[in-house]
């Protein structure tokens, strides 16, 4: 059953329309990320689901019940805000008990359930502390516990990890995902960080200018983006301008613009609206070798960036620059002449103007 059904959602601030006729279904137990740059409308959609933003058109149904006109109090939704907003004058325990109190859960049941949730988050020993006595990660857990303790049908999270440092962020990503698996709560997670969205979600919904640009599983979106925007937003990529020679199979034969070099690519060969077409290549799919390879382009290493876990090289090919991952055991130095090749299956045809 769909836990959340959004149909034709429109949101305006004054005369400014920020969400245009959005449709979205989220299945029970699913973890869905709304991913997009700032101003893409992702937070507005989340606020509308929580009941904090009245839509100008469209409907929202949670667990089969139309809640379009229901205030936040009646929606059975747990929300974790970007700024967490723990109640500063209440202990951790009282913060977590807050939603149980409003639901008229009496003591000792109330305390038992709150402590149970705190134990699940491994912060039971902090129950008597005030929020300001907690570290960022601990506050994060309290905010989650406060939202989850009432067992909402839907958990909404608005960039909750934004304030954490990189290391803690990774750890919390893993923890939140594990917790979501354990509780099975349907979750909608708003973020502008594509790595975070890919690492945590069952499904990523990419938003742009108040519309859904693309959606799918993290790998599908990364490997087979629908258009140039998604290709660039879902991670590092090199875009090579091409002309379509002829459709071939489920892809096309293309020619690198300004050259006679032809190769195969996957994806739609027939972009709408005559937008410029490109081949998108992920850095790990580009092979740079010092030995000649059949059908390879020749290039020159312009720059080398060591990142610890891997090393990137920028290679000049004709009048284009591609970004490639240096493969294991390789050592490409700046200025080296290399042969650049890729698997045809990994060359993805995308269309679109520069964002």
């Amino acid at each position: 059953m769909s836990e959340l059904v959004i149909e034709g959602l429109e949101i305006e601030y004054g005369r400014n329309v920020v969400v245009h006729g959005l449709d979205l279904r989220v299945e029970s137990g699913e973890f869905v990320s709304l991913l997009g740059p700032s101003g893409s409308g992702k937070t507005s959609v989340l606020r509308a689901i929580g009941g904090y933003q009245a839509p100008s058109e469209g409907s929202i149904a949670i667990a089969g019940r139309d809640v379009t006109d229901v205030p936040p109090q009646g929606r059975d939704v747990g929300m974790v805000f970007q700024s967490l907003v723990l109640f500063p004058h209440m202990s951790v325990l009282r913060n977590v008990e807050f939603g149980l109190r409003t639901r008229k859960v009496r003591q000792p049941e109330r305390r038992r359930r709150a402590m149970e949730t705190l134990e699940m988050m491994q912060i039971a020993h902090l129950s008597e502390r005030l929020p300001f006595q907690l570290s960022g990660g601990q506050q994060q857990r309290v905010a989650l516990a406060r939202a989850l303790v009432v067992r909402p049908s839907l958990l909404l999270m608005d960039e909750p990890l934004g304030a954490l440092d990189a290391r803690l962020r990774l750890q919390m990503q893993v923890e939140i995902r594990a917790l979501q698996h354990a509780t099975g709560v349907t979750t909608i997670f708003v973020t502008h960080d594509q790595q975070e969205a890919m690492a945590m979600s069952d499904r990523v919904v990419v938003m742009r200018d108040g519309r859904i640009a693309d959606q799918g599983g993290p790998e599908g979106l990364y490997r087979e983006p629908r258009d140039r925007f998604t290709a660039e937003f879902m991670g590092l990529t090199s875009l090579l301008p091409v002309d379509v020679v002829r459709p071939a199979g489920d892809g096309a034969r293309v020619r690198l613009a300004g050259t006679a070099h032809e190769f195969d690519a996957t994806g739609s060969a027939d972009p709408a609206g005559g937008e410029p077409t490109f081949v998108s290549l992920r850095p790990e799919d580009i092979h740079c070798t010092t030995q000649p390879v059949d059908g390879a382009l020749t290039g020159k290493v312009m720059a080398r960036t060591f990142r610890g876990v891997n090393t990137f090289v920028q290679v000049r090919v004709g009048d284009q620059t591609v970004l490639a991952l240096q493969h294991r055991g390789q050592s490409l130095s700046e200025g080296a002449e290399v042969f650049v090749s890729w698997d045809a299956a990994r060359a993805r045809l995308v269309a679109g103007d520069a964002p």
Partner: protein
Amino acid sequence: MRGAMTSRRVLRIGVLPLALFYVFFFLLPALQFLRSSLYDSSESTDDGASLTNYRRALGSESVLDSLATTLGIALVTAVVSLLLAYLIAYHVVRGPAWLSRLIMVAALSSLFASAIARALGWRVLLADSGPLNDLLLALGVVDEPVRLINNTIAVTVGMVHVQVPIIMLALIPVIEAVPREMERAAYGLGESRWRTFLRVHLPLTWMNAVPIGLIAVMATAAYFTTPALLGGGRVLVLPILIQQAAQVLFDYATAATLAAILSIVIVAIACVVLVFTRWRRTIRERGHA
């Protein structure tokens, strides 16, 4: 850096004329006036400073009655005004733009009206044959006009009217200091608006409202016009006694004594309240996320 130094120096020099003006035209005359409270007015022989005037004043039942009336009106006014102003300021901060604009215009225009005009307005409204009594009679709540004027209630109503707009303006930043998402979090957890106000907003902000309430207490206790006009000579607050002593009886020593007593009592109340509420703990210090 150098610019900051220069502007600080300019500021320091610029403050000087004001400070001198304050010392010569307020502080010195005030001290001179208060000094006269230490010299006995009834004896012609000058035998040095003593607390005779204070002993006499504090032994007088009418002075103690007056002190109690003054403080009573001031406290009730401050509490009622704080509650009303809190609700109004909340709507200015959180309500729709048209409502907050309307309230601001109403509050500011009432501040521009003179205290005398406002008090006389209440005299008309509260008169025996005034609109309020007409309404009560028409509704059958009472059979004959109720005495609404020339008593403590009338003075308190008038004082609340004076204080509410001022307190409301002072409370706006206090309420704005609570992030909107704090309320949203409470709504999302199923709490009603009214109970969110009681359980989240009030506990977070009341400490910052305490000094504002104290200002209302002090300003009310020192107010002369409203008690004089709405009390009809029956509500003898200390400022009225001081005025009578100074301008009717020309007894400056007594006037000074009463003024000193009023000041000391108010300062003492302020100290006690501030110490007990530790109002300096701001929301941020209390660990606002």
